[in-house]
């Protein structure tokens, strides 16, 4: 259980459109993990652009909206996955072939 860094009360986790936020039960302060502010900003811009045609999705996978990865995923997921292209070769390691 996370404690508020300001008032030390317990923080509760909420998941909003795939973005994990912690809110303090005491002072109501909000804690954002790495990349979460960007995720919120992205969601907001998607929302505000819904009247005109939506911008092209950052990835060619329409089945995956905001929740690309779990909140505990690697920090790279804060971006648009562009870090992966050059990792593909090295990512195809022994680990993918064993229990």
């Amino acid at each position, binding site marked *: 259980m996370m404690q508020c860094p300001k008032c030390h009360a317990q923080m509760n986790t909420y998941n909003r459109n795939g973005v994990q936020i912690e809110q303090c039960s005491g002072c109501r302060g909000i804690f954002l993990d790495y990349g979460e502010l960007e995720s919120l900003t992205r969601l907001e811009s998607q929302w505000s652009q819904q009247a005109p045609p939506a911008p092209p999705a950052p990835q060619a996978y329409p089945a995956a909206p905001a*929740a690309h990865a779990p909140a505990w995923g690697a920090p790279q997921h804060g971006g648009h996955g562009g870090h992966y292209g050059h990792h593909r070769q090295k990512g195809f390691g022994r680990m993918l072939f064993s229990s």
Partner: protein
Amino acid sequence: MTTTQTSVVQDLGTLAHRLSHPAGARCVCEPPQVLADRPDGTVVRSGAIVAKAHAADSDHEALAARIALAAAPQLTGILLPPLTAPGRSLTAPEPSGGPQHPEPSGPPAPAPRPVTLWPLGAPVDPTDPEAAPWAEAAVLLARLHRTEPPFRLPAMRGPAKAARAVARMRAALPGDPAVLPVLAGWRALPAWARGEVPAPARRSGFLCHGDLHLGQLVRHPAPDGPWLLIDVDDAGTGDPAWDLGRPAAWYASGLLAPEDWFAFLDAYRSAGGPAVPADGDPWPELDVPARALTVQTAALALAKCAAEQRRPDEHEQLMIESCARIATLPPELAADHAS
């Protein structure tokens, strides 16, 4: 490597060779090839025959049910069928000659390992990431998960294997602070994912593979036949999301490229797989299995590092780092999203 292991390899090679070699023909066979040699699975090939010695502590009745599953007509085109007839009693092969068991004065003879026989298939090429059959694997899983269990089967062993991996890590590294993030991630999991209680009933009745990775797929007949799933040692009924959990864990930790993950997920959904909803956020269902498999992978990595006296490599380190983050975001809170 103990003498026992070596004799198992020899016995399997002899058995596979005896079955693949035409009777009476002059032997021009290649020597038997060891495909895997671990306490929970030693696999040796001769010609088109593969002989597998299962774990010494296998539950023989459960294993027989799993082998019968692979042989069941309902699973044709999904699981590679065995060469052994279902229900046949499984015994270790006879030693190929000479005294191979310890003398009475030596340590007690090891428990015999059940042996099964399989046709040879062509595995995934580890040097060609572009050709990895992610979509094919997902379709096979979707078809497996959609198949009604043809008879009563033991529970899928995924959570039990995760618990075993954590126990192995603790035994290998007593008091070592390196295990702390992994243990913290483990303790944050619900009891069913640690194998302590059965999975929630609404998700526990599906046919599952139980140990999916890229080494569990072969083309049969080799080299161009359709892809099939192999290794039913951990198969049974359970939460089908477990079978998606390992690719999900690799993706979440940054090991699997998004294009590969989404090819896998989209193919699973298109094939009507029941583990995740047909559209929308799949993570409420995937979250706990992916956490558990991240912990399992990190625990095994640390145990192997201890045995080999080395530091975790780059990939292993990514999984260990995920454990630390898993521990700070308990799944009970994430479940808020699922309700």
